């Protein structure tokens, strides 16, 4: 047990990840988020990382929707126009990027531009074909989160407004897909969406989804709360849930309670090396500090 964290407004590095770390293993959050221990990566200068790709896609989509605003405009574009709009924007975005990475070869830049054009086209075509009418009302907007005495900032990738005035929260992801049951079924282990939905104070939300944008597939998955008609893309209509805990108001309540508990536990100073599956620690940057070998040895030699 570490000392309790004192003070009224505790800002936490790592944001919602800190609570996810805490959920998997309290010691993880203690070392990484409270003591700021994390592995440092040298910025690789001569290639394009996954993070670069993620950032560039976010930047592109923000600019695209600032300019084109809503689904009506998108629908009006011919295939060719859409392609042209994408090309122009990507070239613009890549130009700035090139400046920040002087060691990339022209061929690398060229290949990467092609990649972005391809994937941006796939995603926007998807939006064009599979979604009801919407307008984009916010992009990359910052929100301040308060949970118990913890506070941190989040950036919501995008908020759309439907014709009925209700709102959809979108988070773009370029990495591996994970099951939405990680945040729709208790106990939840993916906290990002639940935190956006319960602690940002955004009103009139009727749906939330993750937009997967990678070249294997593009899709929008998540929850639709009130059984809208038509259902947006592939969102799961939770008004159809047979179990009570799957219903929207109950979900909000249980998220609120679970997340609040995690935050209180973190604040109390709990830092034990306990976890459910060692596999959950696969990407833990402070794993050496958990002294798992010693833990195993002590387990093997404890009297029971």
């Amino acid at each position: 047990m570490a000392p309790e964290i004192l003070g009224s407004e505790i800002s936490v590095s790592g944001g919602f990840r800190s609570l996810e770390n805490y959920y998997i293993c309290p010691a993880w959050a203690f070392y990484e988020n409270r003591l700021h221990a994390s592995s440092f990566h040298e910025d690789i200068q001569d290639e394009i990382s996954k993070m670069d790709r993620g950032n560039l896609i976010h930047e592109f989509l923000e600019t695209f929707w600032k300019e084109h605003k809503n689904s009506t405009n998108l629908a009006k574009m011919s295939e060719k126009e859409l392609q042209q709009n994408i090309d122009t924007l990507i070239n613009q975005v890549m130009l700035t990027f090139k400046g920040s990475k002087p060691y990339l070869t022209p061929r690398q830049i060229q290949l990467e531009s092609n990649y972005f054009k391809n994937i941006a086209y796939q995603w926007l075509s998807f939006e064009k074909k599979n979604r009801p009418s919407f307008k984009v009302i916010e992009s990359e907007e910052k929100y301040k989160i308060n949970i118990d005495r913890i506070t941190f900032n989040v950036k919501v990738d995008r908020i759309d407004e439907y014709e009925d005035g209700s709102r959809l929260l979108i988070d773009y992801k370029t990495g591996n897909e994970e099951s939405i049951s990680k945040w729709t079924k208790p106990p939840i282990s993916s906290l990002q969406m639940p935190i956006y939905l319960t602690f940002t104070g955004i009103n009139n939300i009727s749906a939330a989804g993750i937009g997967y944008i990678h070249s294997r597939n593009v899709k929008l998955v998540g929850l639709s709360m009130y059984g809208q008609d038509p259902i947006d893309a592939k969102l799961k209509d939770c008004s159809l849930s047979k179990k009570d805990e799957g219903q929207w108001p109950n979900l909000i309540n249980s998220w609120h309670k679970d997340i609040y508990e995690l935050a209180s536990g973190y604040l109390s100073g709990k830092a034990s090396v306990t976890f459910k599956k060692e596999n959950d620690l696969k990407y833990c940057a402070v794993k050496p500090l958990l002294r798992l070998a010693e833990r195993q040895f002590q387990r093997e030699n404890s009297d029971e």
Partner: protein
Amino acid sequence: MNKSIGKQPIDQKTREEVINPESSFLVQAPAGSGKTTTLARRILHLLTVVEDPKEIIAISFTNKAAAEMHEKVLEQYDEPENGEVIKKIEARAREHKWDDGFMNLLEIMTIDSLASKITHQAPLLSKSLFMNITEDPHEIYETVVNETMKDNEQLANLFPFLNYDYQKIKKQLIAELEIRDQWKDDIYYYKNNPTKIEDKTKKYYAKEIKDWVIRLRGFFKKDLIEDIKSIQSYLNPNFSEQESSIDFWLIFRDLVMTKDGKVRKRFGPNEGFIKNKEGIFYKKNLLKILNYPNINNILKDLNNVIYEKNITDIIPTKIHSIAILLSELELNLQEQFMLRGELDYTQVVENAIVTLSETDVAILFDDKVSHILIDEFQDINKLQEKFLKLLTDNFSGNPGKSFFAVGDPMQSIYRFRKAEVEIFNTLQKTEKFGDIRIKACKLEVNFRSNRKIIKWLNDVYKHAFGEINDMNKGLISYHSSCESLETVKKKGDGVKFHILKNKKKHIYTEQQKEAQYIFQTILKIREAKKDTEIVVLARNRSHLRALLTLMRRDDFPIEATEIDSIEYNQSFQDILCLTKALYNFNDRVSWIGILRAPWCGLKLEDLTCLFETNESETPWSIINTPSIVKHLTNDGQNRLAFLKNVISKSIQFRGRVAHRFFIESIWRQLLGQKTIVDTDDIERIDKFFDLVDQSSSPLSIDFERLERLIEDLKTNNKSTDPNPVRFFTIHKAKGDQFECVIIPGLGRVPKADDHSLIAKDNIDNKDNGILSLNNNRDDEPNLYDYHRSKELIRRNNENIRLLYVAITRAKEDCHLIGSVTENSKGELSPPKDSFLNILWPQDITLEYEEVLDNEEFVPKLRRLKSKDFDRELEINTQISSIKDIEKKKISKDNIYTFTGSLIHNYYELIIKKQLDINTLLSKKLSYIYDIFVKQKFSKSEISSAIKVLKDSLLSLQNSKDGQWIYRLHEDEGMEVNYLHKINDEIKSLIPDRIFIEDGTRWIIDYKTVFDDKLDLEIEAKTHIEQLQIYESLFDDGYLIQKAIYFVKQGKLVLI
């Protein structure tokens, strides 16, 4: 020799025949048939006909196997039964004046060493002059791929097809370089014949389809085919496909299988069956067909047939591009090898092939070598085969030459290393190796296992193997073995199954329950017979984790060989953490790590106090800021001071002395030895320093490489108990035997492998490869997916052999233990790649319903006691200055003392670990050179110093005194620091060497004297006083002999 004929094994005639030196043989020898003994006996007979033992070369594939082979030969040499042969050999030895130790000098080696030896015969041509074989070529591959990927014309074409995944493609290309001997020839064909690719692939496809149609028609027979036709005609009146066309079968598959590859159970209007009399009639007919035995398997296989339209990657441009890219990578790799003076194992064999085909070395070799023997011939790969064929090119027709290969296709388990068992089978069929005529023979008698095991294998397990050899599927036929007189006498109950059933899939529970069950079984076996020799053989190391934990908690004596990953050794992890911290003052994780490790052991509240608020400061500056440190607990302040003190005193030596000495010195000062919990850890720490050596240059440590080396490192756990339960992987246990074998985890599957970038299949038995390219997508199946499905079938068939190897290790009992879980429908079906699937169906031993909770274990902080620690701190500070002067500090003031200190350190290392000096010099000389250069000594100074250093190390093997110094003696005390009080002051005295020989205690100091003209006797006398102080340390009744060893001259002078 007096045994009557009736008592001899029934295959005795074959056993006698295959040792005939005048003929060449391929011997198939099943498990327990005395394979290596046969080979050893042949070597003895060859020794009676050769003029020089060097005419015989015996080859294996691993160092371990080579050592075992040699041991076996020596064993047979002492066997009274071989008396007459040995007499002949001895006569031969006298006649041709062989060296006394000729039996120890036999040419028994791995195929890689043989290749390496050949290349050294023509070093310029094979470019291997001064080239070392590297154990870790990964980094070279990586460099080559990174450089090539930066700017390559082919990428524009390939990148979109390969799904833009830069990191993944890179990883896949690195993996391809590792196995480049598999595709090299094909790649050149594809690169040079772009117009022929499409045709070639289509031809291949046509042939595959034909095989499928034959197989399907054979399986369904006439009656069922007619039934299928009538059903299809009901569903579609225009149906006109015939069973000779693959379309007929694909339409049938689409009817009865769902999209995810499962056989439909219900048919209704959606499938075209209307609810009337006629519809019901045809539906019933169809269900009847689907009840046909084994139909599921063939339908599943049929799912792998790829329709021609889907062979998207025949698109010649793509496969042509990848061929060009790979051939460029291969060229760049050659260039890197040259630049670095390093090469990998594949390259050594490649170079040997070049040497043999383009120089006179083959003829030279042919003059000297007459007999080649190969053990475990089923493990050979194509490249090695090519090499051996060139080597034996002139053997045919020469009665003085012979070729002998022995192995067992049923024990071929190295597909993952690209061993190709079909080479064995082809040789068996053709009886020709190159131009050499070979006689193929089979041994039949199993001397190892008892009657029950042999019977079970012959009657039951036989059916898991193929009825005939089918190389296309990697299927090997079973070859029965029969019992011997010895096995009849053996006790034991043979093969026994223990299958446990779980109601719900819950991996943790399943593993825990199975581990408990196995432990109970072991206890029962030991209860029945106390001294039973028990071994647990697992397919994967991870399958043993739960069981090992359980048995260790019970203090049960166990011995695990290369099972535990070093990750599970805290002492090792701690020194890794220390190393990282010492080489990077910014590395917050490692710094917190060393503050938490037992030598410091700060509590969480102290760590919080240091690091919670000072986010942007480096750890080193935080712990050196008094205003922060003063808030720590008293205990914390003491502990921190100790660590800080040690590090700040020694950090100046970083990069000035060899990394291993620098790290070890700090580790020792931190009382690292005291923190160790297991005495074997000392060895592991030593191993760690070896890895540091391997992954460092004089200036820095390549931590990426270090961690890669660590990842591959497995530890051994020894036991002092005379009969512990032993743990091995099946691959490691090959060649061994045990009374009782336990094979756990039958229901488990190995970790899935990564998908390769290209795959390959052959049109025919010639090397006519068809390549396919992975598009890294899970969309429509294409040729790559087809190739992969075939490869998986081959691997599955290898699993049958892997289990065979495991079971045949048993002499008396073999317990097969596994768990199986009910699916949602209450059915039991073992996972596809599991051992259990091979042996299914089985009776259930036990049922489990409860689900265990994953236990929440809270570890405690382990650290040195503050009491000890305070005292140590005191002593340590008092003596440290003397230590520095006398030992740890390498003075760089002048090159003489610097060289001397280096030699001291290398002596300690060499003698303690009994290293081979030539190997060490070949690996380390450039490293040492760099150390000197860094000290900014002049060039001429350095070259004379290097010479002194070389002479000094070599004196340990070349001078008589040196050899004596090199040897380990009784009561070695090389590392001991003797604390001694002189005039009320504690001093640390460190003689270079102390040991006992013939009742005398020797105290020896090493001295480096550059000048050869100096009178060493006089020089030695100048050190009398120092040695007398050492002498006063001892008063334990031994006679004391003091001496100085002059390292360069290799001379010991007594005082």
